[in-house]
């Protein structure tokens, strides 16, 4: 059964079009919802928060957006078990909203994606995200192979996972680190991490496994023409590479 996916656009979001496009190309019934239409959000079955600089990333990336009325619907939905995927700025917003890792209360974040290290600059770099949990631990990744490698682009200034020691321990113990940065051959080490992220973390999942926050952008490496050197099949317009994750998400939404 095809269920409806809302792709949220806050003021300052900049990746909404390609996010809608890849969800549709993977069989999802996705629509864009602008910030002035927040009241429509409740009727959707799943939410995707795409990349950008929502509310200009004032204070801290995602901090203001987490208070946006649009997030009321997302928080309600997440608590009711709807699937939520946040990408880059969307991931930052989910952390600021306290939905991920979800070890504290709503809108009381216990961890943040914050300024890159060693240099606090924007970094645009191709990466691989390696699935670091049992695929079934998170509904959204259930369609992936164990240890799946997803190609994506890191493109952010604030992508380093940071949290007080006790919260980091909780993140590890609760199996919240869904993705880590990896080399193309799957190896994991500091050289693969573009931003100094704690635990090499590229993505976090909540306790219930229905909310996933990832920093890199798989939707920017999601069609054969984005990666001609490693195309799968002859059709340059066909989804591949980063599309794997969106297919798994759409399949989970449509169950």
């Amino acid at each position: 059964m095809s269920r409806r996916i809302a792709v949220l656009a806050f003021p300052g979001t900049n990746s909404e079009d390609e996010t809608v496009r890849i969800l549709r190309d993977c069989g999802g019934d996705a629509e864009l919802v602008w910030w002035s239409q927040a009241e429509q959000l409740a009727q959707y079955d799943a939410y995707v928060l795409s990349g950008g600089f929502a509310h200009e990333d004032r204070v801290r990336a995602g901090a203001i957006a987490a208070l946006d009325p649009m997030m009321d619907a997302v928080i309600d939905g997440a608590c009711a078990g709807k699937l939520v995927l946040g990408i880059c700025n969307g991931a930052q917003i989910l952390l600021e909203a306290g939905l991920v890792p979800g070890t504290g209360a709503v809108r009381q974040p216990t961890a943040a994606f914050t300024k890159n290290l060693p240099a606090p600059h924007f970094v645009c770099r191709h990466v691989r995200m390696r699935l670091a949990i049992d695929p079934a631990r998170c509904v959204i990744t259930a369609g992936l192979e164990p240890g799946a490698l997803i190609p994506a682009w890191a493109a952010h200034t604030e992508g380093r996972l940071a949290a007080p020691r006790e919260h980091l321990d909780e993140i590890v113990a609760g199996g919240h680190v869904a993705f880590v940065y990896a080399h193309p051959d799957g190896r994991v080490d500091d050289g693969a991490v573009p931003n100094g992220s704690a635990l090499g973390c590229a993505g976090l999942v909540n306790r219930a496994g229905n909310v996933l926050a990832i920093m890199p952008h798989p939707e920017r490496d999601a069609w054969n023409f984005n990666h001609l050197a490693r195309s799968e099949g002859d059709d340059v317009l066909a989804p591949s590479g980063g599309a794997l994750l969106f297919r798994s998400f759409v399949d989970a939404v449509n169950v």
Partner: protein
Amino acid sequence: MKQVGLREDELERIAEGLGRRPSPVELYAFDAQWSEHCSYKSSRRHLRRLPSAGARVVLGPGEDAGIVHLGTHAGERYGIVVAHESHNHPSQVVPFEGAATGVGGVVRDVLCMGAEVVGLADPLRFGLTDDVRGHQAYVARSAVDGIGAYGNAIGVPNVAGDVYFERGFNDNCLVNVIALGIVKEDEVVRSYVPKEADGWDLVLVGKATDPSGFGGASFSSLTLDARDAQLNKSAVQVPDPFLENVLMRATYRVFALLRGLKIAAAFKDLGAGGIMGCSAEITGQGGCGADIDLDCVNVALPAMAPEVIAVGETQERLLWAVPPEISPELLRIYNEVFTLPEIACNARATVIGRVTSSERYILRHRGEVVMDVPSLLLTAHIDDELPYTEVIYHGGTTDELPAVDVESIFPKVLAHRDVCSREPLYRRYDSVVRGSTVLPRGSGDAGVLAPVTGSRLGVALAVAGNPRYGRLDPKYAAQHAVLEAMRRVVAVGAVPIGLTDCLNFGNPRKPEQYGAFIAAVDGLAHAATELDLPFVSGNVSFYNEGPDGAPIPASAIVACVGALDDVAAVVTPGLKGAGSSLLWVGSRELVVGGSVLADVLGIEGQLPALSMSAERAAVAIVHDAVTRGVLRACRAVADGGMLTALARLAFDAMLAGRSIGAEIDFGNPLCEAGGFLCEVSDDSEIDVTGVLRVGQTIDEPQLIVNGVRFDVARLYEIWSRPLAELYP
């Protein structure tokens, strides 16, 4: 009272045209509109010599951006909109803001043609940054951060660009920016109203007008000393990429509205001359007049003087001219759906006046008419005939080339500031937002995008303009810029279809500097005519000189747009396999004038001859290899010569995990005469006329050059490091 840049004879001409002395508002209006920046008064007569026609030209120079035909998809013709701007003077003074507003402006130039903005490029010229804590380094870092901050936030990928560090730019950097857009050719929005527009609404959209940027147009037309004096007078503009992001998305919705209703409209960016300049041109060029009430303008401060509201250059503003029946819906989209007033303080869309058939340009303020002039006088083409000294290049020295010890020299060439990896710089730019990037920054000689959703059409973009040549011979440098930009587009497998330029020169009132400009136009015109490539847009930036009056190196910077019918044909990065032939296609003259090698050796030498017929033949050979699918890898030969091109092909192979090197044998592989270095399979049946086989690929990551062995990984270390300190 603020200083105006008008000359005595210009003031007389204004008084004569009006039959009276101009009012204060009128004086500032003419000051802006007749400035070099707006009027191209010293350049227009020469720019006419650039070829601008051709079968693919949809819209040539004259509006906010030019348009060239890309291809057809699903029965629709698509055009690439391209604009080229400079923000040199603001970037030297406040580099972050100056460079950022440069991006914002060129993006609006493309947007207002009815296009979706799909790509950016940024040719940069900075002073020597050896002291990474010094002022030149500050300018070089802040300008890059400004470009990144703006482009990243609005979500337009930066896919091409270059950077040179040169003593000649120590006191006057160059920040050029190019934007690309995609538009269906029958949905282009024009920059001026049609004749029957009498009674249309003029709708101002965007940021609240403030005193920032007041006097910006004449600011750009002053030399550095005079600019310093203007600094405390707010001539520099303030960027708000957050607002521009929302403006772009709201505007896309308005385009859809107009398409649905099949309503014609005019749309234009507010640049130099502010509300006055934009409204005078959008109406005047259509043969109409305007009647505007400055009290209707949304302003940031109370009690702003009418001349500041009228000609201030506040950023992030656009002007629509639309039939009044659609104004309510247009206002609703901007103000309610996209909530402009909540995005930035007092930002909004608002009706400020109307188009008239009277051919008078009228501004009102507090119930008084503060400006009432003939539109034609205001937008008249001012043409200054200035004296110039002809620039003749004397040919350089003909010293015999010293024997080059490749083993010791090649690492120095790779680490040279004009050759080493640009990655530390462009890593700060989002090169992949929009999800349509085929080749991002750094993965080829040109960036490539798939700009039409669901289509295989591709567009390539590359820039060139070598200041080492500019220093020696402005005409040669200009020709070379056309050739190099074109080669870069060809090297990724695209067909070059159009050019855009920015002519960055010194003071046109100094005959030798004006002469350099004229020589550069000659060079551009010659090369573009010979290669049958039109210039569809362009820009001129004069008064680029230091406090001592020394001009920058002549800098005709060229961008080339290329088309791909199918992005699958893109030549992907890096050597592909062992046992293929390495061919040097194109000119291979063994002289070193203007090369990195000459700089490293401290010699002058002669400039390599440019042959347009050899160039056409080389391009045909590369195209043929692309079409037949036998071109496995390719790089244009440029800074650092053929050996550098080869090294970069080897680096890209290494980064992709392929263990491949090459063995070549060639007299002086560091000459920069041009052409292409190509990897082709051995059975490629390439027509070998004009082609030299210089060696072959091997299955170990080594470059063996005339018997000297280099480790590819070691060379990569040398090449990739130098800029990391400047851009950590």
